[in-house]
């Protein structure tokens, strides 16, 4: 029962790679966007906010299809990227990472935004009077104080990314070794007559990964919060 086959290993490692890359690439964008939403007022802000949350409420298959239209080989952005930069998303693991990044983005942004909103802006003013230019205020005060939220967002985003299924399979299909993540491997296995045990193994593994991520988030957040409040 606990003999993990090479195909399953491939799917597990691919899932981890896809989720880690998706989270790492999405985090700087998430921080920038969270800051924008928390701190700035501009025309179209609620529209942008709604757009960010779209993957949360749209059927994943719709998001996947829209990604295919946009980032597919003949898509508006995908075609350009493939031609000029040689970056191809369609039916590649990079596409899976893109789909996971997009799907987990709202979950990543939200805790970061909340933690930035919770920062006492008077501390930033104090930093400014001590000679810190705006970007240094951000780097030395805002960012470290938002760290618990950033970590929470990253772990939540990671957990979502590792379980993503609908958008990924729509966008990049289910190719073993390239785009077959744990979720799509389980999906394939439960459709094959004797795939039950293997599916069960992957189910257990994904539960362990998800719970592990949540525990890690809790521990990180608690440590970071303690650090911030002078313990």
């Amino acid at each position, binding site marked *: 029962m606990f003999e993990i086959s090479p195909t399953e290993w491939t799917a597990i490692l691919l899932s981890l790679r896809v989720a880690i890359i998706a989270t790492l690439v999405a985090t700087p964008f998430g921080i920038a966007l969270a800051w924008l939403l928390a701190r700035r007022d501009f025309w179209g802000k609620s529209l942008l906010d709604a757009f960010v949350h779209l993957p949360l409420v749209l059927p994943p298959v719709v998001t996947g299809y829209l990604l295919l239209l946009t980032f597919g080989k003949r898509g508006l952005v995908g075609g350009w990227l493939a031609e000029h930069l040689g970056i191809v998303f369609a039916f590649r693991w990079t596409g899976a990472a893109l789909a996971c990044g997009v799907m987990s983005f709202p979950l990543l942004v939200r805790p970061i935004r909340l933690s930035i909103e919770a920062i006492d802006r008077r501390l930033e003013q104090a930093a400014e*009077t*001590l000679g*810190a230019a705006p970007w240094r205020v951000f780097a030395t005060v805002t960012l470290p104080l938002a760290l618990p939220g950033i970590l929470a967002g990253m772990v939540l985003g990671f957990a979502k990314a590792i379980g993503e299924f609908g958008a990924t399979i729509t966008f990049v299909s289910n190719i073993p070794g390239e785009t077959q993540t744990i979720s799509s491997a389980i999906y394939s296995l439960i459709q094959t007559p004797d795939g039950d045990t293997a599916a069960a193994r992957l189910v257990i593994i994904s539960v362990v990964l998800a719970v592990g991520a949540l525990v890690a988030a809790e521990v990180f957040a608690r440590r970071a919060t303690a650090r*911030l*409040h*002078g313990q």
Partner: protein
Amino acid sequence: MLRVDISKQLGEFTLAASFESEGRVTGLFGASGSGKTSLINIIAGLLRPDRGTIVIDGETVDDSAAGIHIPAYRRRIGYVFQDARLFPHLDVGRNLDYGRRMNGLTEDPAQRKRVVDLLDIGSLLDRRPGKLSGGERQRVALGRALLSKPRLLLLDEPLGALDEGRKLEILPYLVRLRDEAGVPMVYVSHDAAELRQLATQIVMLRHGRVTAFGGVKVLTSGA
């Protein structure tokens, strides 16, 4: 030293203040709501005046007619807030060094030791602000502002959040600061007794206007 001639509309409230000060400690005196904090924030560069000029140490930092508004971080001022505002994620030592680092100043261990000794905060250096008493916090805030080597130190009711006992604990440090640190100060307070001990010059504010200006004796006549 410090020349202020500004006006600023803040909602229904109009602040229009004009004074020139050469004193070591200029006391900004007035009841709450008289515009003291807004005025000191304008001097700090945290608020931009609608009209007028501010000159610190011969440098024009605000001139609405010429479109000059030097942001707070380039004014080389120190600001001690009523609520200390120490950085909770940095220990006391790193709070003290923050201004030096941000201004790209070279380390000056002698100066640091002088300030640390002056304020008696040597035993607190490794602690986090969360573990300090209100009085200790305010002393660290004073040290932090001084160590950024400001040419003007702004203090906005630095004793305002402390109880009587703590006030008496901090006051001697402020007197020492005035006599030994050699940095001109603008000291905001609604407490005439406090200003009598510290200030060398008084600017009296009422409803956003300067109603009296002069030595500490204006405190007895005007208030």
